[in-house]
């Protein structure tokens, strides 16, 4: 049977790409920062895996292994001093860290702690901070595009020198919200950058079942906006393509759709066994096109950094994550009745239901009784 659409991106295309000339735009310090944030992302996620296996993570765990360059490179193109704002997706932990999210916050979120940024209401990296410049995502894919169109609309209306950036995956490009949001922003010439991280899979669905478009960047033409495609596993390429889009937006040039080509090396979430992935595909990307390996190789080749300096940074990150883990583990769980706070500004607290009046917590022990019938007695 003939296949329609595009196959998942192949790693060979970018294999051994260390010949790209040194960019003059980023100072050596900043280039080391790119490394720091990619490594921080990966190490933090590895720690979260450990906590997950220790059953200390309450919900699911989402990785961005192999996609760190997309997140970090693109987020670096924003100007935090100007108040630029991004909206991350589930593989954009790195973008949030660049904007100032703290590892302890992330771990508290995953552990459902009472002093997590959402006070235990939301999971994983679903949180935001307008001051630091990131808006919390929701699970409904594509929905953040109209929202960030509105954020950027407010910049335009107030004549502020600010840019908004929203991440979506290849899967979200099929949603109505993606279409409506990008079209709205295009018509309004909002200062918005839409980064489509094409990692080949939406949960188990490969790109060829998601779209008949030859490449996702082609969608830009239909909206009458600029479109660019870049190697998402090259952190400098991700930075540069996003920087051009951010500059265009800031100069009044409207919306840009960027397709960053990358690969999702882990499943949709930690429970996903990736049975749908062709044999050898993951290993090939891991061996030949790891964004951190590639960047390290380039930095060493260019003499930007020495191996022992990288080891020092890695050790610092390890210590930072250790401290964050200790802090998060020591955090309290939420008070049960905090669940009734903050649905509205007014009333700020809703009264408990009659059968909860005077009740401190709903259950004594959170264990599944055998009477539920899910276990053999």
């Amino acid at each position, binding site marked *: 049977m003939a296949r329609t659409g595009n196959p998942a991106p192949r790693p060979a295309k970018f294999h051994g790409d260390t010949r790209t000339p040194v960019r003059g735009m980023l100072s050596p310090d900043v280039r080391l920062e790119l490394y720091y944030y990619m490594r921080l992302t990966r190490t933090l996620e590895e720690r979260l895996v450990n906590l997950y296996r220790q059953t200390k993570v309450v919900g699911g765990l989402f990785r961005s292994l192999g996609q760190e360059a997309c997140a970090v490179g693109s987020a670096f193109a924003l100007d935090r001093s100007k108040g630029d704002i991004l909206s991350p997706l589930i593989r954009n932990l790195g973008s949030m860290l660049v904007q100032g999210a703290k590892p302890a916050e992330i771990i508290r979120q995953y552990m459902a702690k009472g002093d997590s940024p959402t006070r235990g209401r939301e999971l994983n990296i679903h949180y935001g901070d307008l001051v630091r410049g990131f808006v919390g995502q929701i699970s409904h894919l594509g929905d953040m595009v*109209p929202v960030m169109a*509105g954020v950027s609309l407010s910049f335009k209306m107030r004549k502020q020198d600010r840019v908004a950036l929203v991440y979506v995956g290849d899967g979200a490009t099929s949603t109505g919200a993606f279409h409506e949001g990008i*079209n709205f922003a295009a018509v309004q010439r909002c200062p918005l950058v839409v980064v489509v991280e094409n990692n080949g899979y939406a949960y188990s669905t490969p790109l060829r079942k998601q779209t008949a478009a030859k490449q996702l960047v082609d969608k830009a033409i239909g909206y009458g906006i600029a479109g660019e495609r870049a190697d998402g596993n090259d952190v400098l390429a991700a930075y540069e393509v996003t920087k051009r889009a951010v500059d265009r937006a800031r100069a009044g040039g409207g919306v840009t759709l960027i397709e960053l080509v990358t690969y999702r090396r882990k499943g949709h979430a930690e429970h996903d066994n990736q049975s749908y992935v062709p044999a050898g595909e993951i290993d090939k990307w891991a061996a030949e096109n790891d964004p951190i390996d590639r960047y390290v190789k380039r930095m060493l080749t260019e003499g930007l950094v020495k191996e022992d300096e990288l080891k020092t940074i890695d050790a610092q990150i390890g210590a930072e994550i250790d401290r964050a883990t200790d802090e998060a583990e020591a955090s309290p769980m939420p008070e049960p009745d905090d669940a009734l706070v903050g649905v509205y500004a007014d009333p700020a607290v809703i009264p408990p239901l009659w059968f909860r009046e005077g009740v401190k917590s709903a259950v004594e022990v959170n264990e599944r009784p055998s009477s539920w019938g899910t276990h053999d007695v």
Partner: protein
Amino acid sequence: MSEITYLEAIREALFEEMERDENVFCLGEDIGAYGGAFKVTEGLLAKYGEERVIDTPISEAAIIGAAAGAAHMGMRPVCEMQFIDFISTGYDMLTNYVATARYRAMLPCPMVVRGPSGGYVRGGPFHSQNPEAAFLHTPGLKIVYPATASDAKGLMKSAIRDEDCVLYFEHKYLYRRIKEEMPAGDHTVPIGKARVAREGKDISIITYAATVWKALEAAEQVEKEDGLSVEVIDLRTLLPMDDEAIVATVKKTNRVLIVHEDTRTGGVAGEIAARINETCFEWLDAPVLRITAADVPLPYSPPLEDYVLPQTLDIVTGIRKLASY
């Protein structure tokens, strides 16, 4: 001061709020150059320009989503749904994104979504809806549905100033059929407060929007013909519901008829009846009865629409049944 219509009252509120606060802006389909399908926003573009009166693509999800994003940043957007029937295409943005924003992410979402609602106008299945019950079930939203011109103005001003998202349903049957002199000054009506539209002592009708007028008509008829004294409560706000006003009228008359134009199953009346059951069962002398639309999509042809929607005579029938219980 002269009388203005329900529609003009809404428009007056929009003008006053845009004048008062430069963060207030309007967006929707055909609201600028054309002034809106019902001309509610007529004149706004001329006065406030394209930046603050935005003609949008046909994209309810984008209108609501973009309003939410702008609201996070301190703007006060007022979204028009050309007909409130189309709010369903923004349902996800409203219920999943907007309604949860404060709770899950401490993100303020002060915005208004307004639109022409309701039947009795031969609009058929997609220009006559009353979708309030679909949102009553969503914590984080507020819902208002005014029945009078002064409430239309006062609730719009309060909705725009509210710190959370307010769904503002405006009844298109009432747009140009009722007139009233506006209270002087900066007239606001508090969200969450019902109004006693008519005092009475024998039977209470709890209702809102266009059926307030039918209830008043029925009350007058049974006063003349049966000597019954009927109280009419106009809820004005559906979410949060004014439990105090509901309990007060139940304790006063001990017999309750709930009337709404929306369909019956899963409707607002069921929620009110449940609350009365839980809070003042022992004050009742009769079962709580409902007069509502039949559970069908609203048909177009006059004999069909008239048959489906609650009419004054139906309310009279309900009152008499309660009185004789």
